[in-house]
């Protein structure tokens, strides 16, 4: 794991613990975007899974109880300690257990959780695409289809930024390709 990625994940996990303790769900959702820069540059599984995990937690915690939070906090703390000690395998294993725990929480239907995780992938994909990574590359990084991503990114105002002009010339050229 790149050192910059490790440091960012440690910071995000520490913040996540704080927000979960304080039940600051919207801050947790915002926090899920903090590793997107690294997701875009390094395109590594660790940055991606943290973005997806934190976003999923923010959605799931809207509908769960204190028991769920304490289990999640315990797991985040354990993962963070391992990452601090650079025990990457133990860290990854704990994060995977946490993802599995979220997926199996019995306070909600499995279908809802799967939907949340899928939505998290697409939303984070939308952010990575906004950062300048192509549609197909982004879909590949997250293991989703370009269909899902395309359907989502159109709703982002930022996709209209940095578009080169040539509107008139492009249309005139397109017209020239076809007979009247």
């Amino acid at each position, binding site marked *: 794991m*790149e050192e*910059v990625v490790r440091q960012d994940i440690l910071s995000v996990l520490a913040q996540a613990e704080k927000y979960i303790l304080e039940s600051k769900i919207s801050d947790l959702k915002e926090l899920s975007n903090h590793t997107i*820069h690294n997701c*875009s*540059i*390094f*395109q590594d599984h660790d940055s991606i899974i943290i973005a997806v995990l934190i976003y999923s937690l923010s959605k799931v915690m809207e509908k769960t109880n204190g028991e769920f939070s304490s289990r999640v906090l315990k797991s985040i703390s354990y993962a963070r300690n391992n990452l601090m000690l650079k025990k990457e395998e133990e860290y990854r294993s704990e994060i995977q257990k946490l993802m599995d725990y979220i997926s199996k929480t019995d306070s909600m239907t499995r279908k809802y959780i799967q939907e949340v995780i899928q939505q998290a992938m697409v939303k984070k994909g939308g952010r990575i*695409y*906004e*950062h*300048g*990574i*192509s*549609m*197909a*590359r982004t*879909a*590949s990084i997250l293991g989703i*289809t*370009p*269909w*899902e*991503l*395309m*359907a*989502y*990114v*159109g*709703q982002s105002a930022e*996709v*209209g*930024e*940095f*578009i*080169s002009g*040539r*509107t*008139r010339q*492009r*249309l005139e*050229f*397109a*017209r020239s*390709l*076809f*007979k*009247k």
Partner: protein
Amino acid sequence: MKKIFLDSSAVISLTLNNLLWILDALKEHLDGDFFICPEIKAELVDNPLNTKRFEFEALQVLAQINSGALKIAELTPEANTLYDELLHLANTSFKSKGVWINIVHKGEMQALATAILSGASAFVVDERTTRLLLENPGALRDLLQSKLHTRVEVNRQNLARFRSLTRQIKVIRSVELVLVAYELGTLDRYLPAGTPEAREILLDAVLWGLKLKGCAISEDEIAQVKRIEARVSE
């Protein structure tokens, strides 16, 4: 014979707006064919057919392939070599935090390679990154830098080679195909009855439909296109 190559993003935009059928209609006005490359077919058809999500959309694309409206370009050894080079060049053109940023994926570059070697008249791509890479890599660097909040180095040699290999490619988007179809009257079946502004309403609807389904067109461009079309109909 003209050859127009489509990237997956353009096919997706058209399909999600129920407008893929216009390729068939446009083909009557095109002395040539529309093409996709094998990797794009895998992204659009083969992979989604293995899932429930977007399975029907995949079938719609497959129907266009089966009808001949959309042809699959052959991936020659030369195209394969060019595709490898384009993928390498594009993904080693921008560096941040000491690593090359993988900005594009194989489907996009395979489509581009087959388009170049087939002497394509146009390359239809809706997604912003590939389009900027082809037309304005400086803006792509600015975009990366602005969004990543960090300095992005450019490998000018690789970028220059990429531009040299792709210099004959002319880029359009699904929106231009739809605008031609609109001007040809292909979309008249959607004109709302009982209003003198039927054509303006239809134009606004298709432009926003495409934008909201991912075609990289800005609000300013939509306004500009509407002004252009208003002058055409005067």
